[in-house]
């Protein structure tokens, strides 16, 4: 496995990130912000590239659409909710969001972001089924693949490796 980071067994398709392919160009951030806000402003993007610059490693972080989504649990207004009409993805209804940022605090992956211009919290919604980060990633570090058995076996492999490393006390 080439460092495939995160796959989630939601309905149908999920975003998969390969950190070994990522060059840290942040094209994904750019197209994400253009698609969602109309402005080329990475600070308003729904994907953030995390950098280990000293060793040249980069990891685009997106929403995991977790099965037990803490952002959905803690949202006081139900703005952050599962959308049954859209593959049960976790989405934020901007018209209901009050900008309390509780979801940002609750998410273990630090994902939902506060949009300082709209004054609400925003998160990855897979661009309504056609993720722009996948379309524009030159090196194919992000892919939008089926959450099928292949992914499950990869995830199991990742979990086993991680458990082995933890046992070795590294």
């Amino acid at each position: 496995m080439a460092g495939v980071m995160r796959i989630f067994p939601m309905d149908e398709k999920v975003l998969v990130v390969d950190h070994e392919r990522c060059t840290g160009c942040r094209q994904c951030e750019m197209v994400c912000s253009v698609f969602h806000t109309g402005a080329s402003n990475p600070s308003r993007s729904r994907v953030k590239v995390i950098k280990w610059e000293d060793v040249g490693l980069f990891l685009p972080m997106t929403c995991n659409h977790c099965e037990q989504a803490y952002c959905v649990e803690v949202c006081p207004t139900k703005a952050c909710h599962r959308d049954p009409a859209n593959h049960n993805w976790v989405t934020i209804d901007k018209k209901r969001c009050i900008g309390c940022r509780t979801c940002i605090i609750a998410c273990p992956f630090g994902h939902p972001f506060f949009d300082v211009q709209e004054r609400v919290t925003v998160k990855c919604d897979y661009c309504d089924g056609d993720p722009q980060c996948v379309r524009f990633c030159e090196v194919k570090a992000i892919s939008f693949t089926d959450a099928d058995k292949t992914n499950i076996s990869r995830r199991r492999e990742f979990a086993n490796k991680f458990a082995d490393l933890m046992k070795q006390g590294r």
Partner: protein
Amino acid sequence: MITEPTPPIRNPNVQRPQREWGWEIAIYLYMAGMGAGSFVVGMFTNWLENPSITIQVWGFSFDIAKFALFGGPILVAMGAPFLILDLGIKRRFLYACLNPRSSWVARGFLILSTFIVLGLAILVISFFYPTVFTKRPASWLALEILSLVFAFATAIYTGVLLKSVKYVSLWNTPLLPILFLVSALSTGTLVLLLSTLGYGYLVPRGEWFYKMINLWVYFGQVLILIECFVLALYIMVYRKDDREASQVYHFVLREIGWLICGGIALFLYAYFLKHPILLIAAGLFLFIGGFSLRLQVLAQGVKEQPPMYRWIEMTANIRPSERVDDHVRKSLWRG
């Protein structure tokens, strides 16, 4: 060659303290705790001693002692707008109660609102109709008990709200609600002490005055001891890497410092010198300590490292470097 440093949001080696909840939320938690604590202590005092200072205005009698005892809901109501101030879109604040099934923010909204309504009802009725305490009908007793339950819930909720955040190890401990509850009671007791002291300059000081002051001084001393004990437990239970633990250790020590100063002032007042300046000093120490406790607990909230970061560091043999960035931590609370 000097390169531009990686911004903290993209740098996995810097585990930033949360910056979503700042001083506004600290004030909200502090005022809610202090108001609810003063109401709880006031209610118990009323049940034990039933102090009363009745004044006559235009033929009507008002009990101004009850105003000090049950003034807590006013403090809670004064703190609540700070939660609204923290929202991105303030005009939508009423939406904050729509998900009480799983959200502690929504539950808190309902708990605080109910307490404010019930507490203000008690305050107004006891102020304008002091005879209610002599007759004490069953409905009034039910209202007293219900408001007391909601006052307790308000005081403990401020800690439960933070405890519900599972990935901040400093917050996710059952000791935090207990700590906030005891702190709420101790600051609430000092609110009663100082307000009664203020009354002492307005109305003649009778036997009630010294009885109340002495009672609350003893309450305060006991609560300070319990709070010191809970704070000590808090740091003993908290286990993180050395650097973060030392940060938390210093803030806990500072909190215990405030408590000890307040405790000494109360001790001197109780046993050596009955001078009001000692009560004012104790109040200042405990008020600053109580606010600083909330602010520091918020400011020290650092999320645990996501597992994928750890995975990458392990596979690439990157030694986890600085985990908590002092510079970022300090700059957070400037603005």
